[in-house]
């Protein structure tokens, strides 16, 4: 695996070809904007194509090198189509951010099998399909910009500790160990691909799905914040900055690792 060649005077992910799933909103949109501002060519995928188009519209304010695609991450044919499109347009792939995910969940004894399966399909199987597609697309090839490729899987603090969201935690815990196994495999094969997981705590996005009018939701939210040492949730940009670090060559020696951005939630 290559030694670091970091030029801090230039854009931190200049000319890297980046796929961001779930790029139409929340962490995905903030990441698309931040990486594009740092010189990346960003491909935004989302199951909601209108949301993806809106993100790309925002990116076009400062770059033409962006595009979007409708994608169900749990569908492997969609991954084939996405990779084919990216490779035919850009010739290679540098970074994949497996960000798409859903948050429906609840306690074990009330979880219906179909809800469990939907969460596992999108959050875990979708990530697996993405990791597999990216490794097959990148393999042992060296990127034209000579740096290592990076796959970033968005897990959660609930991929590290339990917390009353049984299917979500099971899926995100799976993402944590999928990441380590795939990272060890790539390193063993001598592939120049780093794979890490990122674990946000509470983030101010639509997934939090808080009804500001509902006093029960407000109470639940206040109780959650009371458990976060920093006493607040993260803004999407604070997660995007961690993704930028993992996407850039600054994290050249990190693979199979966990980047926890949770305001101290799991430190307690």
């Amino acid at each position, binding site marked *: 695996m290559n*030694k670091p060649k970091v030029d*801090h005077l230039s854009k931190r992910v200049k000319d890297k070809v980046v796929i961001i799933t779930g790029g139409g909103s929340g962490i995905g949109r903030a990441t698309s904007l931040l990486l594009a501002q740092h010189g990346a060519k960003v491909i935004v995928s989302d199951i909601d194509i209108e949301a993806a188009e809106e993100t790309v519209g925002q990116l076009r304010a400062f770059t033409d090198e962006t595009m979007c695609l409708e994608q169900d991450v749990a569908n492997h044919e969609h991954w084939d189509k996405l990779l084919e499109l990216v490779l035919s347009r850009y010739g290679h792939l540098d970074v994949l951010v497996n960000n798409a995910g859903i948050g429906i969940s609840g306690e074990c004894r009330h979880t219906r099998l179909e809800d469990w399966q939907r969460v596992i399909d999108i959050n875990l199987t979708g990530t697996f399909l993405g990791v597999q597609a990216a490794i097959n697309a990148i393999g042992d090839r060296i990127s034209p910009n000579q740096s290592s490729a990076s796959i970033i899987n968005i897990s959660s603090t609930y991929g590290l500790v339990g917390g009353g969201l049984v299917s979500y935690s099971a899926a995100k815990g799976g993402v944590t160990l999928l990441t380590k196994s795939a*990272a060890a495999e790539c*390193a063993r094969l001598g592939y120049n691909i780093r794979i890490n997981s990122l674990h946000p705590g509470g983030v101010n996005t639509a997934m939090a799905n808080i009804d500001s009018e509902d006093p029960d939701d407000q109470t639940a939210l206040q109780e959650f914040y009371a458990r976060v*040492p920093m006493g607040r949730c993260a803004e999407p940009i604070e997660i995007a900055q*961690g993704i930028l670090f993992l996407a850039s060559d600054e994290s050249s020696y*990190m693979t199979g*690792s966990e980047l926890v951005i949770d305001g101290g939630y799991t430190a*307690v």
Partner: protein
Amino acid sequence: MSRLLDKVAVVTGGGSGIGAATCRLFANQGAKLLVTDIDLAAAQTIADQIKGQGGEAVAMHHDVSSESGWISVMSCAQQTFGKVNILVNNAGVCVQQDLISTSLQDWRKTMGVNLDGAFIGVREAIKSMLANKESGSIINIASVNGLSSGGIEGCASYCASKAGLRLLTKSAALECGRKGYPIRVNAICPGGVNTAMNQMLSKEELAAKEKCHPVGRMAEPVDIANSILFLASEESSFVTGADFIVDGGVTAGFVSGDYPEMSAGGASE
């Protein structure tokens, strides 16, 4: 880019290895440096290099296990630069010896530098940062040997000190968060790094150590310095009490490929 513009950083053990790489990187990003080391000449060399390139840096002799040493360092930072924003508790020692031949004095020497030193540093830095009324970031350099011995024998005191440092980090982060202090405290756990600390290893031991890193090499100091920069900067504004493992995959799992293959139907015989 100036990711640390006008920030003041204290880096212990700044005269060599990870500390020196961190000082250079921080200076490139606009920080003013107080480079401390038990070896003043080494710290002075780094400070002079930074000044030679137009940066601001001061070197100071510093035994991190001494309480009065820390008070002098913090007051020097205050007098020279007017504040402290960043502390990198990097100074550390590793003495390889079997547990049964480790005297209490040997044990205390390792704890004195690796754990007492970091504790006093965290305490004094929090005081200085609160006085400045600016946000602060403290980064403790632990080790993957603070998670597991990694199969290396003869490092009991080192492993124990680094494990302690990880939980000192989390406890300090919790306290700062709960009290509403604008100070984040995090740890980095490097795997093997190409520094003087590995000079005690024989060629064979070094080759074995490189081989146990899935990426096939040890880290260069700048690999670690880049993670320290992320934690020092405002980019990591929601990161506190975290442990960043920067180990080339050592803790991710199987390395050599000689583990048993499993067929789709279950484990093979």
